[in-house]
């Protein structure tokens, strides 16, 4: 029972950081139809910026959050630049061209990160109040992980509120659903597109900053979540924030349970999940209606 509880808690602790990173990715894909291959690179850049800003000191919580938002803002700017210079021109060019563009952008960001930050590994200490672990029952859980879970839930709620309850959200959903009609109705689609891309990248940057105390900030970090983004989009379904959250939790739980009960299969868990979803319900678990194949 203890093991199960531990596995579940760790699954959530793995899933929510994944959601933090994947939320931006699903947002961009859902609204603009662009599979942002470079998303992992934005994530890595955010972590690097944050690490450099901190300079190895352990901060108080408010300062930590401030710097994290600062890193997110930097990445948002990078996102705006990318969108204006690259994706805005390729909106009507089809998926493959956009994919090539995203890949090229990813390479440039990776090269830029070596040029700017060098080849050393950066270490980001946890903020002062969250250095240890608390016990849920008899299961130890690092308090920083709980903080990240809380942050993730706040982001999820915020995104949901933005997309579903605000007028901006209505415009975003209109553009996602039918860009031409939205424009005809007066929605400034290019501005919305730029805003969504910036927000998606900001989320990636924020995720990079918040995740950095838990993983090495070094080259190769961008590949950590690369496949998982795609998996979350498939399982969660297009355009659904809660779907992305649920999918991330599912992936995290699957892996965590397998590590406890069937370690030899733990790497395959994610793929097994995807295959099951693809064969049973290709439009995703949390979306109603037939599959939007975005052909």
């Amino acid at each position, binding site marked *: 029972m203890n093991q199960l509880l531990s596995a579940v808690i760790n699954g959530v602790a793995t899933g929510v950081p994944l959601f933090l990173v994947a939320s931006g990715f699903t947002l961009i894909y859902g609204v603009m139809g662009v599979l942002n291959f470079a998303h992992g690179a934005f994530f890595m850049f955010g972590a690097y910026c944050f690490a450099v800003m901190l300079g190895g000191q352990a901060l108080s919580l408010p300062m930590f959050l401030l710097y994290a938002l600062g890193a997110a803002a930097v990445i948002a700017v990078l996102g705006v630049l990318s969108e204006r210079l690259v994706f805005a*021109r*390729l909106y009507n060019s089809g998926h*493959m*061209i956009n994919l090539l563009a995203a*890949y090229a952008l990813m*390479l440039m960001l990776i*090269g830029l990160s070596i040029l700017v930050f060098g080849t050393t590994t950066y270490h980001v200490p946890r903020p002062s109040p969250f250095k240890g672990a608390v016990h849920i029952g008899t299961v130890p859980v690092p308090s920083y992980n709980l903080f990240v879970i809380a942050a993730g839930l706040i982001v999820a709620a915020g995104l949901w509120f933005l997309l579903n309850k605000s007028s901006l959200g209505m415009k975003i959903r209109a553009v996602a659903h039918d860009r031409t009609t939205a424009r005809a109705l007066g929605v400034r689609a290019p501005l919305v597109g730029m805003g969504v891309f910036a927000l998606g990248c900001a989320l990636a940057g924020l995720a990079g900053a918040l995740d950095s105390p838990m993983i090495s900030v070094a080259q190769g970090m961008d590949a950590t979540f690369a496949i998982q983004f795609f998996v979350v989009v498939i399982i969660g379904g297009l355009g659904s924030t809660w779907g992305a959250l649920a999918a991330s939790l599912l992936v995290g739980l699957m892996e965590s349970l397998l590590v406890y009960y069937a370690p030899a299969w733990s790497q395959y868990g994610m793929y097994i999940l995807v295959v099951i979803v*693809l064969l049973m319900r290709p439009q995703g678990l949390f979306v109603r209606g037939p599959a939007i194949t975005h052909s």
Partner: protein
Amino acid sequence: MSVQTPAAPPTAPPADLASRATRALGRFDVPVVMVVVGLAVAFFPTNLQFLATTMLIYGLLAMSANMIVGWLGTMTFGHAAFFGAGIYFVALMKDFHLNPLLLVVLAGVVGALFAAFFCVVTLRLSGIAFVMMTMVFGQVLYLLLFTIKKLHGDDGIPGVLPGKLLGFNLLMPKYFWWYAVLVVGVCLFVMRLIHRSTFGHSVLASRDDPIRAAALGVPTLSIRTRVVILAGFFAGVAGALFVQQQGIASSDTLYWLNSGNIVLMCLVGGRGHFFGPVVGAVVFVWLNTQLFQGINYANLFIGGIFLVIVLALPGGLSGLPGKAVDLFRRLRSLRGGRP
């Protein structure tokens, strides 16, 4: 202002020697290009022959992927799986000392079998679900390289000797080059024939307008299956050549990013042009292993080059000569006044 006389009805092209020769050249463009390139590279120093061979093999691999990306119009993130099937098959056969050409053909069959299996699994999928499955398939095979101890995971299987063909030791780059030219040339020629056949036309039809094609009785699903199996065959052949040249089967060839690279070669070279993927492969290999060698932030420039290609030449690099010809014609008409 003159009265427009109705256009004369179209007649058959004049059957004189010049146009017949041109048509024949058009049909045999693959062998001619292969012989010309083959001869050119034969005079290169050894290390460049080796590089050219690698480019040629990747060219074949990209051509096989283009059957899915260009002809079918579908993304794939798992093409490296069929490439890897060919690689590891030949590597596992290294102690049997079989004829290299035989191994190549068998590797192609192995690639086709993997492709067939993949098709069976994805029969009911399309769109992004299909693309996702290609990635899953590729990654599962990659992970199996580590799970199945016989495949040696990241150490790979070294010591794969290409053997001898007609008395020529293929270990020498200059002989291997001609061997590769032969195999790749035959494959490209066959691809050409397929592309021009009715089957090829129905593939392009079902890509360009699936609904109309279906209405016309084109069996879309079985076309996709057949194309994927063919693509798997040629990818397996490329894999066999690759491991025969490199001498070692390594796991990184199956990683999904490598599958992404293969599609990139198609896109950079131009998936609408027949030789496009080969051009893409040459540029890709050259950028990654030669140009910017030794700069640790080389990716910045490589990515930049790709970005420029995407923005300026969305049809790929092989659209460049066409654009140049058009530009030249326009300049000429501006100057001469004659349309």
